């Protein structure tokens, strides 16, 4: 085991797979010689050559399309989209092509493409460097949607993504690259060495899709979340002094219904939290699953704490962000109901 931050874990996953499977290739903007604007591919071109790791023109559509084509010819491409906010030009290739290819061809063709992309706010990136568009992709059947919350999971899940024979969108909460973020921007930041999930095996291991993690067991209420919000929720739970069960979904599609349902059936209370905007977000799906499956056990309305329904504003980053206080308020409301 080694100490890794989340970037190192993501780098390690890619390096492990490049070494293990010569069909693995990486493409994206600035990911070659330079090693990526977040350094998630640092050193990989030097080690594996530009035949395996290379820069592309600035065309998200072209990147995804080329990666699909490469996968059709036996390769196993990892495509980096520099910011999740810039994934939209590739939307058609993802939703109409990658997601539907296996189906439309009666199983003859399919793509194993993995798309890695940094998402979420907290770096003063303004509205085009902060978005969390996962809720747009969870409505597209035929792709897997993953978002890890820590280095250990990031590496294991990314290796699973690369090995998967289905297309995967792997969202990386950039606020977590260097350390867990507990939702308090004014507090000094801490590194992953302070967190048990910063211990990451050097070699190959996988974490299966569709399995949520219970990051805190509890009896009072269930909080379902993923990505950065896992740590923010932790803070809020401490502040509220409740015995919450915190579920880190990790995999949004496929989603781990059983873990969710068992927990809410036990606690009877539930809160859903994500950084993305509320209306039509993935929180609505989580809430619906619970409502449909745990109706008779629910003792209070499920609440959603999310980003407001506005673009992520540069100067009001922390007013937009669903921080510990808003979560605590919601916890209190739910516990009092």
């Amino acid at each position, binding site marked *: 085991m080694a100490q890794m931050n989340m970037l190192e874990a993501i780098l390690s996953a890619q390096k492990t797979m490049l070494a293990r499977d010569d069909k693995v290739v990486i493409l994206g903007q600035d990911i070659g010689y330079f090693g990526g604007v977040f350094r998630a591919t640092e050193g990989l071109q030097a080690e594996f050559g530009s035949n395996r790791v290379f820069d592309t023109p600035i065309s998200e559509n072209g990147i995804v399309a080329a990666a699909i084509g490469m996968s*059709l010819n036996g390769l196993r491409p990892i495509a980096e989209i520099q910011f999740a906010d810039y994934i939209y030009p590739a939307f058609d290739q993802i939703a109409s092509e990658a997601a539907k290819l296996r189906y439309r061809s009666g199983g003859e063709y399919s793509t194993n493409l993995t798309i890695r992309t940094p998402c979420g706010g907290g770096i003063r990136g303004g509205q085009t460097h902060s978005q969390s568009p996962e809720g747009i992709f969870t409505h597209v059947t035929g792709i897997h949607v993953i978002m890890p919350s820590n280095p250990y999971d990031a590496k294991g899940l990314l290796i699973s993504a690369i090995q998967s024979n289905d297309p995967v969108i792997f969202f990386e909460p950039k606020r977590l690259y260097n350390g867990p973020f507990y939702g308090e921007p004014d507090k000094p930041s801490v590194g992953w060495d302070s967190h048990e999930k910063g211990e990451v095996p050097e070699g190959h291991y996988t974490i299966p899709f569709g399995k949520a993690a219970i990051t805190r067991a509890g009896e009072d209420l269930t909080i379902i979340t993923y990505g950065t919000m896992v740590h923010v929720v932790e803070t809020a739970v401490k502040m509220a002094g409740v015995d919450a069960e915190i579920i880190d979904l990790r995999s949004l599609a496929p989603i781990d219904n059983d873990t969710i349902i068992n927990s809410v059936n036990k606690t009877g209370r539930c809160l859903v939290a994500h950084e993305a905007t509320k209306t039509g977000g993935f929180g609505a799906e989580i809430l619906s699953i619970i409502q449909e499956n745990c109706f008779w056990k629910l003792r209070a309305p499920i609440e959603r704490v999310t980003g407001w329904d506005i673009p992520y504003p540069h100067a009001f980053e922390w007013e937009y962000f669903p921080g510990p206080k808003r979560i605590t308020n919601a916890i209190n409301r739910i516990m009092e109901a």
Partner: protein
Amino acid sequence: MAKKQNQSNIVNSLNKLHVPQPTARPDEFNDFSNLNIPNVEQAECPAIDTNPHEMRGLAYGLIRVLDDDGNAAGNWNSTIEPHVLVKGLKDMLVTRMFDERMQMMHRVGKISFYMKSTGEEAISVAHAAAINFADMVFPSYRNQGILIARGYSLVDMMCQCLSNARDNCKGRQLPIMYSWKKGNFFSISGNLATQFSQAVGWAMAEAQQGGGRVASAFVGEGSTAELDFHSALTFATAFSPPVILNITNNQWAISSNQVVAGGEKTTFAARGIGFGLPSLRVDGNDFLAVYAATKWAAARARAGLGATVIEYFTYRVAPHSSSDDPSAYRPKNEPDFWPLGDPIDRLKTHLINLNQWSETQHETLIEDIKTEMKQNYKQAESYGTLKSGDRPDVTTMFEDVYEDMPLNLLRQRQEMGL
């Protein structure tokens, strides 16, 4: 500034947006006399390793081999074995008659939709003849001739159109949206042009792995406006992969004339010049020209010289699809005036000139194909039609969304009682 004088080419009257217009609308007349058709001697044939900048002229001329009398001539003429030509003629005929049969089947309600390639058969068939079977084709929906030239079973094609129990797309796709993996023929997408950029990726992987095969992708001239066309050319110029980027300019995109797609100010082949790619403009109704241009492009690709753009200049004789009635937007007799003739007639005359074919052989062949087509259809229909209920098993509806069926789909299948 502005030293040299020139005639005006002002296109915009003030106070009015320039909206490109076709030469003629239904009540008007168009004999294509506005087209400048160069003769077969005009186009040069550069060595494949010529610098693309030295062959820009090819994007503005027209590569032709068969002259008006059906004789082969010009710089692009080369010796093609007669059996290749005879097979080509046969494949074109089969393609045309297959289209006719299926169009009829649509008319009588056996299939839900159809798209013919009438008049454009040489493009698919000669192209297929000039590349290797192992080369990977990323087709548009009007390349049925490639399947036929590659020997795909007509029965299988019909079964796909019938969405019956033997449809290899398992009833999921509209008729004609074929997929034939064993034939190195990619699954046709309903979303225009998406295959163009994917083909470039496939070819990049081929270069990366040193396989020696070529990718060949097709779009219509209307579809060159789509985004994936740009991605394809951008990646093709950056990475020089072995790919042929084919544009079938059949003058129409549903009701929109090729001028709407940006064909008014230059050729579609010229798009490739914008990226420094060798770009050929080819008489698409000339089997020998299509064959020669394809061979040239494939040789470039196999030599590691990268991508070639080819525009095939042709005419969509058929309606856009079974849902379309072209008399609503173009002169009814416009197809009759297409100055580049019919690809089947032209190759037939050529073969007769070569003493490799005769009118009798031709008639016999047509009769044979007719019989075969009937038998094939009979067989295909024996596996069911969409209406007969002999569809693929309905439980397959939930398969192939993912490699393994996730829980939500398992549960939905259960909910359906399957």
